[in-house]
């Protein structure tokens, strides 16, 4: 079976899937979609794939899926033999899904601010920026107390999950929306950790972190 990703390079939601598939070492084809300036995601052909007119769309054999969070869960359940990325435990599943929802809130705020400033979208800049700051404050606090108790990731397991992948891209791209992360030092440290996950790849706008201190 072949996996096909309908993809736009500058989309953080598409990148979530490229990132997980790289970490899981999955092979896939890319169908580039001219999201900007072509607005191809509103074309008839694309709307037949996803009536919501949104990227990303992933096809796996006969299956056509949309929504990055849903697809992350699908890929992890289907292809992650370790079971770590989207754990089975009901409580952890709920926790991860909670963060997938936060990721959508980040898309609605930080990503919207980026679209407003970079891609001429008619969003309310001040409102989206303020919304992103509100979310970042909470995540920073969560991660700061996590560090104090030995938790490095958004969800409670001792390893990263799709929760981290879902929230990462638009946190990292927030400055393009005029949202500084200077006030969120724990959030900044977490972005270093995500960038050091084996198999990590970049997208345009996100630079790699250098290597961690080698264990003595």
């Amino acid at each position: 079976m072949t996996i096909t990703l309908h993809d736009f390079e500058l989309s953080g939601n598409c990148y979530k899937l490229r990132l997980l598939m790289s970490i899981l070492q999955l092979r896939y084809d890319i169908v580039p979609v001219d999201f900007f300036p072509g607005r191809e995601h509103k074309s008839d052909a694309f709307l037949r794939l996803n009536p919501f007119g949104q990227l990303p769309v992933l096809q796996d054999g006969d299956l056509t899926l949309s929504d990055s969070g849903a697809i992350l869960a699908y890929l992890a359940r289907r292809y992650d033999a370790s079971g770590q990325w989207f754990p089975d435990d009901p409580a952890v599943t709920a926790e991860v899904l909670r963060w997938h929802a936060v990721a959508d809130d980040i898309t609605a705020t930080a990503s919207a601010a980026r679209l407003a400033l970079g891609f001429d979208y008619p969003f309310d800049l001040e409102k989206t920026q303020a919304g992103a700051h509100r979310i970042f404050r909470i995540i920073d606090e969560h991660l700061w107390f996590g560090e104090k108790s030995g938790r490095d990731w958004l969800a409670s397991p001792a390893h990263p999950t799709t929760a981290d992948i879902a929230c990462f891209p638009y946190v990292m791209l927030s400055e393009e929306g005029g949202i500084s992360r200077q006030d969120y030092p724990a959030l900044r440290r977490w972005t270093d950790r995500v960038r050091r996950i084996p198999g990590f790849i970049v997208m345009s706008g996100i630079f790699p972190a250098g290597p961690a201190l080698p264990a003595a």
Partner: protein
Amino acid sequence: MTLSLSDPAWYPIASSDDLPFRHVYQGQLLGRELAVWRADDGNVNVWENRCLHRGVRLSIGINEGAELKCQYHGWRYANRSAGCTYIPAHPADAPARRIQNKIYPVAEAFGLVWSAAQDSDNIERPFAPFPGAESGQWFPLRPMPVNAAPEDVLAGLATLAPDDRPADSLPGLALRLGDVVYFVQPVDAGRAVIRGLLPSTPADATQALRHYNEMLSKLRDRLERAAAKKPAPEPLAPAFDKVSADLATMPDIAIPRGNTIPVVVKRKWTSADGVIGFELAAREGHLPTFQPGAHIDVHLPNGLIRQYSITNGPGELMSYIIGVKQESASKGGSKVLVETVRQGDMLAISEPRNNFPLRRDATRTVLIAGGIGITPLLSMARFLDKSSLPYELHYFTRACEQVAFRGDLEALHGTVLIHTGLPRAEIGTTISTALGAWSQAQHVYVCGPSAMLESVRTTAAAQGWPDEAIHFEYFKNDKPIDDSSAFDVELARSAMTLHVPAGKTILEVMRDAGLTVPSSCEQGACGTCLTTVIEGEVDHQDVYLNDSEKAANTCMMTCVSRAKSARLVLDI
């Protein structure tokens, strides 16, 4: 109280825990943005958050452990000094001009990192602990950023005091509430961070941290609601310093010239049979930035000047470590150092200079050392090691006991091969195997006795290594000097014209005319007398400049080189 850009007071700018290894923290104090990073040796660097090259924030760069790498063009800046050590666009050049980022003073105490808007070279007000600091085992709270004017935040904190026990105000933007001390970090005119310290680690630390975090969050929300009703204050507008005039132009080659630096011999030890190690430390603070392959002039008590390579790794600036060969027949250079200089003595050294720059753009680097020649190559190996670049170090000595810096060599992660007591012929074949056939982007660096230099040079050439891939350093100029020419030199800045007869050097003639001009080896090997040429054609006889620098005809060594034209105009 209004904030002043030039307020020299110390403020906390981060928690110690904010600075794990290999991370760059983004901070701000009185409007100035800061890139703050902890090197692998534990030292905390507080720098202006702006690369001197093209102004990119260093907080998006990479903490490589001993150097910070800028994200835009990969310039490297050294731990402690913020001096630029490498410019990848010109990998074969040593960035000899002193490119140094702006640094702020730093102190780490009570679980916090402190800094001040002062010139770090000239601190007018040193760090002093807050009153009562000595009585606690301080435990920092979660910092609380607030979008409100620092003075309003301080006033807000004071309102947390119970009526019967008002807050004690402390110097600066700080106060004590009961036994908890709060500092307000003035980020900018309308932004602050509350940094609190508990006097000891509470029994249930998490619960206590949560409790204070909740309390401060509520205060923050209150302060921000009030601030939102007022007009936002104008952000402070710190100016960026200008770079020195010589950095604003692009000379083809740099003119190293510097003052001497007093150092103290912190340690003197026998590193191996016939090799004495010296650790030279600055009297205070750190020593200047150096690049791998660099050497210093050591001014000896008997007036002689000798060159020694620095063996240190990147960002190690608290002292330089050099190795000195104990030569029985030495004419007073090394001999003085070895025999009369003792631990605790003061010496003068020059700023580091580099005639032996290390490229960091090789796919393979071969380092070949003979005897005391290990010193520059040890430094190179350490730099390559830190950047995880591949290298092979071959170190030849006559006997096992002569292997210097053994412990340091063992700490390296690359390929280190020590060859002891090989017969001459076998040295040749070992070198040949070590080099192998050349391919694109491979470089070899050699330092050792001239026979070894020659051997590496000819073997490498025979195995297809081009000249540009073979690097060695001359500490001596063995070539015969032809001083038969006669010509005039015009000294543009001194407004005088002198005649240089056959048998005399330009340097001698200038000194006869009463000028003070620096020199050291007087063999055209050390670079001290390098002078800019404005007009005329130079007859280069030194071993300091490389071929393209010689061809450029823009500078010369006045101790040996002469004129092909009838007249030279020098920038002196």
